[in-house]
């Protein structure tokens, strides 16, 4: 089990890294899906099969697909050279330093903990369901309201109000006249 964990973890890390450093949007998204899948494996071996399934179905299957659709609508692939210009090594310096600082703090914090290694048990979907609909009922209802708000918001914000000039006729960075 440990080896599976280690392999899955390293795949997740490497694919996340590849995802954020990629210049092509689609490639980055695909790397991210890979990372999500490996995390799903980790869920499975941690005794949460339901969550593993949910991760694949909802996260990798719905959200990432939505991303890919939007990227395709926006046709970003043409803007790759701009990405090259933006991603200089200089821009990486400060965030990486901060991240390393945070990592050091995290390691330091973790060292304070002493926990006992216990054997994990599998938590079945049934248990999760019971817990959801008894203890956390209100949160479920609120989550439903949130989703509804998300739907309505996305619909309203996505509405096109005016006639859009074909984007090949307008230079990027300029506002659409009349808007």
């Amino acid at each position, binding site marked *: 089990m440990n080896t599976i964990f280690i392999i899955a973890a390293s795949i997740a890390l490497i694919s996340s890294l590849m995802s954020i450093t990629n210049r092509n949007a689609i490639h980055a998204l695909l790397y991210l899906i890979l990372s999500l899948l490996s995390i799903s494996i980790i869920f499975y071996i941690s005794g949460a099969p339901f969550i593993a399934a949910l991760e694949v179905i909802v996260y990798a299957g719905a959200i990432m697909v939505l991303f890919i659709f939007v990227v395709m609508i926006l046709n970003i692939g043409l803007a790759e050279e701009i990405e090259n210009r933006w991603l200089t090594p200089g821009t990486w310096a*400060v*965030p990486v330093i*901060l*991240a390393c*600082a*945070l990592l050091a*703090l995290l390691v*330091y*914090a973790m060292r304070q903990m002493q926990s006992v290694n216990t054997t994990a048990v599998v938590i079945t979907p049934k248990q999760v369901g019971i817990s959801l609909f008894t203890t956390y009922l209100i949160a479920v209802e609120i989550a439903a309201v949130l989703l509804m708000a998300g739907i309505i918001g996305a619909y309203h914000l996505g509405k096109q109000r005016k006639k859009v000039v074909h984007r090949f006729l307008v230079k990027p960075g300029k506002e659409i006249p009349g808007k």
Partner: protein
Amino acid sequence: MEAYIGLIPGLPVLSFLMIVFLGRIMSRRAIAIIAVGSVCFSAILTIMAGISFINADSGGTAFTSTLYTWMNAGGFSAGITLKLDALSLVFCFVITFVGALIHLYSVEFMQDDEGFSRFFAYMNLFVASMLVLVLADNLLLLYLGWEGVGLCSYLLIGFWYKDPENNNAARKAFIVTRIGDTFMIIGLFLLFISFGTLDIDTLMQQAPVQWHSGSPLAVISALLLLGGAVGKSAQLPLQTWLPDAMAGPSPVSALIHAATMVTAGVYLIARTHVLFSLAPAVQTLVAIIGAATLLIAGFSALNQHDLKRVLAYSTISQIGYMFLALGVGAWSAAIFHFMIHAFFKALLFLAAGSVILLLHEEHDMHKMGGLRKSMPLVFITFLIGGASLSALPLITAGFYSKDEILWYSWSSVMGEKWLWLAGIAGALITSLYTFRMIFLTFFGELKIEPKHKPGILMGIPLAILAFLSLTGGFIQLPENFGHVHLFSNLLNPLFPDVRFTGEALPEWLFQVISAIIALGGVWLAYHYYYKKRTIPDLFNQHRLNDFFYKGWGFDWLYDRLIVKPVEWVSTINKNDVLDRIYTYIAQSTLFVNRLLSRSQNGRLRLYALVFTAGLVILLTIMLTL
């Protein structure tokens, strides 16, 4: 009777308020009736109170009337308590009586002026403040009246405010007297700290108990009170404001700067005479100041062109006599001279006012002349007033009062021989400049034709005051004339008797000397100013004349000493260095604002960067501390 004492200052206050609030809708006649009537009623009340006070003959106990408790805090209590004893009775009588006459005069004097109601409002406020000053039972209320008269003096000097010269004169008067007032308030603080109260009776009883004669605190507090008196009474070194104060209307000069306000200093010293007795050095200083001032002012009056300025310097000089009397311990003589001086000086100012008004606002004496025939009433009254001022023997009241002072200055224990000498020299100069003024103005050829004869409202006050200038002296005749001691009997319970030195030259000697000197001054003036003989070069040097004309250079001195440095500092500070500090505080805040607002550039990534940095810092702090 005691209950009505509050009305004596109260009626003028009421009329002031009525004129202030209702003046717009009242006719001039109504305003005049109210203003003059209130002061007249106060005069009548004073006379009634005086009669009942004298008849009560209770050996000096006073009528007291507590109107209101002003403050009662932290062990200090002061009330609006009015006390009428002999001293304040005399002052009240002069203020209300002379004040009523002057109000009557000003009805005609100001009839063409557009500030009619404003004038009477200020005048009534002044009379009320002055009455509060002399009737006050404690020094705090006295100070209230003191400041009130200072304010009214400022308002009335600058009455014709459209001319900036008048405003300058008013400000000068206010500021110079303010210096004196500051000394006085520090003196009041000192008295309060030492005694815990400002009640005059208590102070006068406690002071000899607590302080022995010549103790430093007594000297300091007497000096401080003297500072206040010097400021208000225009003595050395704060005398520079009074000649310029002649920019106000003549009734104002008559009331404020001749009869009443400038004698407030005399009143203060007389009231607190116990303190001055406890500090003999200061009392001698009072006499020295009086003597020096009367000489300086006398010489300055000799060289003036302006009619009213002569009278102003004359006032300074006569108050110098009063200070001289106070300084040698002749308390009642000083008050007597005050009363007589009020009569003739007010008369002189009112007559001069008539002259100036009817000669189309001409002030220069050298441009006047020959008014003897064209304004006979004014001439006669002016002559009587001038005679009283010069202390012409036997017939004028001024003779009796001034002579008493001169005698005491020689023979009192605290008197010095040279003080008498200064007084006599001053008497010569007084009659010299007085009759110079009379000869230049009324004799000679007619240069300007007066507009018309003065009316009855001007005439009656002139006549009454002339009568009093002649007969007022008869209530206090010297020893060898008769034993009429009405005045000093009135004031005796209040003041200790004058103690005489061992050597007693006969009094008639002094009277003869003063008579000769006074008449000699008249003859000199006749010789040089009527017959127009040339004055010998010894006395007529141009630079000396100029020096005297400018009031012995005090204005120049103060200008160099005080005004120029202040102007220099303010020129250096033109950019207001001190204010820059506050501007810098504001500017630095703005600078920091600009600096910090650069961090709000609207870019999301920068905000996230700052989040992360803050997170790092916070976690570091939380985990390591």
